[in-house]
């Protein structure tokens, strides 16, 4: 009886970690950007609507998988470096582009909003990567960007860095108490336009 109880406890502990590590090794072929033209979604700050219109159930599954999966987040972490997101956003602290590790989101913190920022671009310099980026990779980037400010579960966020990095691993970041959606700064848009 005790042995059975122990086995059950071990099983619960072991299986509890399953979903976290499920690897999406062969993303479905549809998981690729087929966006041929650039579509700018919102030109003014403020969160996007909850879901990208017209997205299929399979795509929603992909999103659910990506933003809660440890493998997807660490792949996204690699891509963030490799695709030179760091060029503007630095290691998350921001530079030419806005900081991603704070709790201020110009266009909302939902996966859909971040996905649209990456694929369709935003005004004031964020390029549209839609035609260039495989959709599965875009979602991995979304997952990682969210982990930078503690928006993914702590056991999903990466626990280590592959190389020297200024900031601590993402799973040590405390989740923000509330997500602040900043009001459009009155003169910010105008002042940035002239200075690329």
């Amino acid at each position, binding site marked *: 009886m005790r042995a059975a109880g122990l086995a059950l406890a071990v099983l619960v502990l072991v299986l509890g970690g399953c979903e976290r590590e499920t*690897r999406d090794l*062969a*993303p479905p072929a549809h*998981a690729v*950007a*087929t966006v041929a033209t650039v579509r700018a979604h919102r030109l003014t700050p403020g969160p996007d609507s909850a879901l990208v219109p017209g997205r299929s159930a399979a795509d929603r599954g992909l999103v659910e998988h990506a933003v809660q999966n440890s493998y997807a987040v660490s792949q996204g972490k690699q891509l963030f470096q490799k*695709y030179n997101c760091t060029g503007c956003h630095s290691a998350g602290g921001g530079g030419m582009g806005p900081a991603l590790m704070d709790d201020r989101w110009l266009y909302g913190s939902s996966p859909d909003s971040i996905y649209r920022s990456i694929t369709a671009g935003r005004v004031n310099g964020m390029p549209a990567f839609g*035609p260039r980026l495989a959709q599965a990779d875009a979602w991995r980037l979304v997952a990682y960007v969210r982990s930078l400010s503690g928006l993914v579960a702590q056991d999903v966020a990466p626990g280590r860095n592959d190389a020297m990095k200024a900031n601590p691993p993402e799973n040590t970041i405390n989740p923000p108490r509330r997500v602040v959606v900043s009001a459009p700064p009155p003169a910010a848009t105008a002042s940035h336009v002239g200075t690329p």
Partner: protein
Amino acid sequence: MKLAGLAAGNGAQSALHPAGVNAARIRDLLGAYTGVAAVVFVLVVGCALLALARRRARPGEDSAPQRHPAPARERRTVRIVEALSVLTALTLLGLTLADFRTRHAMAALDARPELTVKVTGHQWWWDFEYQDPRPDRIVTSPNELHLPAGRVVRFDLASHDVIHSFWIPTLHGKKDLVPGDPTSTTLRPDRVGTYYGQCAEFCGMQHATMRFVVVVEPPDRFARWLEAQRAPAAEPATASTQRGRAVFLGGPCVLCHAVAGTPAAGRLGPDLSHVGGRLALASASLPGTRDHLTRWVENAPATRPGVMMPPTALSSRDLDDLVNYLASLK
């Protein structure tokens, strides 16, 4: 196909069929060690069996060893043990000297490399960069190593991510590629032929398929090959390949791949400037046929789960043109 000569079992990836001086010396050393060890084994086991057969206690006899053997017999035993100890020491000394000689011969090669190739290991493919004093003459040849026969080649080994190990069994022993800690190895290929190299340090999901083709050719042919690699990619000649280039430059390919002579300059994946002329695809895990190229471009993770190259959702016409373009890059 082009790789027909590489069927398993013909020595294309066998340390026992050396095609270069290093592997030949290692094979000789292996032969010497195995031969000496075999003789010693036969002698020791033979003597033990002989002793068992000769000195078996008869019924009623005390089988315990004699506590005080006759002095003459004692002296004889001690002498035999002494002689065998000296023989053992000499054998070990001989093997050690043979080992030193092999190492010395290999170290002597280090002094005069005629060609330097920088090897970078990636998850999961190889990049070979042919060094040249003039930077514009440096070329890369991913997953396909061409070497001039009879010339000493030095390899500078580096890793992009995790530890890999560079191993061409027909040419030399293994050497690890350690991230952040450059290593090097030198070898001289002698026998012209096509061989396989292999990653020899577990490096992740596709470690087993992380291979490369090694073409050892006469120096003049090698020089022609190297010169051809330095040329920019071929201009598309047909309507289909021209469309293919547009698909390539307008799609996700350019984020990771480079083609010399076009704006594509991605450094994350293999350089595709001469991909159509390569003997094998996908880190030498697939034959270099158009059919395999199509399937690879369409859905790479289906063949090698875990690879960074994502599946593409191109229309069949786009895919066809793209593959035509890639195949035309000789």
